[in-house]
């Protein structure tokens, strides 16, 4: 099990080593110590590795991840797991802004709170936040599921497309074209599947409300001009 001490090893050497691993590598479990808030730790990994980061990370940790499971034993800076393609990123602490931004697949679990713009422009990723999320989350969210066990800040889902937002707590306000929807069987199944993937089987889907697009702004009409 390789252990990389970022107090001693350069980030470039770590990421370069991760990118050079052959597909049949036996070195599938990595531990990164002393991350020290460095940016772009383990970004662009494209193998089914398990990477444990023992501490706080800076921007874009696990960015554009494919296949890997990345566990952050601390807080994460801006854009954790941004544009993730597949795999899993789990933040044991809190996450800063734009967590899971533009993510296309995989699972992002934030065990603490997430800041503003969580899931902004998400495109297929599943995001689970055990705590609360900040304002303008899921802005222009295109697809995927955002599951929030706590509360959501202002302007949730502004200008949303086809993403589904499940919130267990309160919502400060909804953004343009975002409405509360009736949770159908398909929505419920999707929610339960995400909760199961996130290992939150004790949480009931009954406790959540579903928010999504009213689809009024999919085509411009002057009568909706106040929404812009």
């Amino acid at each position, binding site marked *: 099990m390789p252990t990389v001490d970022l107090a001693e090893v350069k*980030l*470039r050497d770590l*990421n*370069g080593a991760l*990118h050079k691993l052959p597909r049949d590598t036996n070195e599938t479990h990595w531990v990164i110590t002393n991350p020290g808030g460095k*940016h*772009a730790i383990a*970004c*662009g990994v*494209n193998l089914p590795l398990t990477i444990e980061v023992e501490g706080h990370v*800076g*921007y*874009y940790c696990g*960015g*554009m991840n*494919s296949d890997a499971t990345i566990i952050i034993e601390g807080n994460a800076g*801006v*854009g954790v797991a*941004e*544009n993730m*393609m597949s795999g899993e990123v789990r933040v044991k602490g809190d996450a800063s*802004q*734009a967590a899971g*931004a*533009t993510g*296309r697949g995989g699972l992002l679990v934030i065990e603490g709170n997430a800041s503003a*713009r969580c899931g*902004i*422009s998400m*495109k*297929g990723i599943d995001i689970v936040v055990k705590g609360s999320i900040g304002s303008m989350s899921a*802005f*222009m969210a*295109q*697809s995927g599921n955002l599951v929030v066990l706590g509360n959501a800040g202002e302007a949730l889902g502004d*200008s949303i*497309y*086809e993403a589904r937002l499940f919130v267990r707590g309160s919502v400060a306000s909804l953004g343009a074209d975002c409405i509360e929807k009736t949770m159908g069987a398909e929505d419920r199944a999707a929610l339960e599947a995400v909760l199961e993937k996130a290992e939150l089987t004790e949480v009931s889907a009954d406790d959540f409300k579903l928010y999504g697009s009213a689809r009024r702004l*999919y*085509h*411009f*009409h*002057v009568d909706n*001009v106040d929404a812009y």
Partner: protein
Amino acid sequence: MTVQDPSPQDLPAAAPHRTLPRYSATFDPHTISEIQRAAATGIYDIRGGGAKRKLPHFDDLLFLGASISRYPLEGYREKCGTNVVLGTRFAKTPIELKIPVTIAGMSFGALSGPAKEALGRGASASGTSTTTGDGGMTAEEREHSRTLVYQYLPSRYGMNPEDLRKADAIEVVVGQGAKPGGGGMLLGQKISPRVAKMRDLPEGIDQRSACRHPDWTGPDDLEIKIEELRELTDWEKPIYVKVGASRPYYDTALAVKSGADVVVLDGMQGGTAATQDVFIENVGLPILAAIRPAVQALQDLGMHRKVQLIVSGGIRTGADVAKALALGADAVAIGTAALIALGDNDPRLEDEYRKLGTTAGAYDDWHEGRDPAGITTQDPVLAARLDPVKAGRRLANYLAVLTLECQTIARACGKSHVHNLEPEDLVALTVEAAAMAGIPLAGTNWIPGKF
């Protein structure tokens, strides 16, 4: 715009003692039609193309060919180099192009698949690069582009790390000349199943492209974003930063500070697939006014020629190319001109343009997807009209002409490489152009604002 009053023969016989109708210079026929259209529809005009108003441009500059004080090179005999190397600052694998003219980013979605293929074919045949756009990388453009620059855009449509790794360079798009500060709009009629799938959006809806990157908020974040892109691609590929010309000195300086290998500066004459007419015509700077401040920023930072500068926005001729290089650019990019070379607005299609309520040379409703040339459309029947091999050949011919024209001017100025052109080779015809380009008014030593 010059307003042509109605001629007497176009009008009914005038009553005695009545004056002929006369158009207002303020409320000219185009303005009146816009007011009428706005009143009928309740939305601003969206169109493609670039600015149509008369703007200060390279036409306002002239070269000083060599005589006694400078010694010319022999045309068609003495070598005049045209190659350009981009990305020499940090990238392990800089790009070398044979000519200093590149193809600007234009999206699959805005353009048809055959059009993207033709751009790749023409650029590759000429030894230069082409660029993806807001919609992701298509297999056909990667296949047919020897050197392909991947645009990393605010919308992140179709963005994935594999395409970043397949690219030869990455262009972080912060702004576009036709709409600095604005996002894009691809109307629903162009959202084919393939376009919708690439962009993770439902078919047929109007697609809004974001005006700012979702996961960063300013130059400090840009620096970290560039670091991420470099880490992801193992520091191999040049990183470009593209800005719309509005505050060129500061934007260039901040792009350099953020770690850019190449700065791309797009003037307001630059084209767009679809955006608000009011934006196209009223926001940003003409490229003539933007080059010198950008070059000044590079010089002040000691980075001129170390961080390369590509300029775009209304480049049409080899003279434009030469003037841009003389003002300090390392290369230029063409968009609208490349589409015209492929066959856009071809007069042979005049009958079909008329059916669309326009004429060859003025067609700009690229967002409607009904382009009879098969270029700015996703209609498979229309798109099939464009032969990518023939269109690519036309583009290669045009690129050759731009290069030959640039070379012949450079030789006349005594330069053995087009990059040896310099501001001292130029004079301005107008006070405005002299001030904007920072070169003397013709026949004087006067540079407005400097001496």
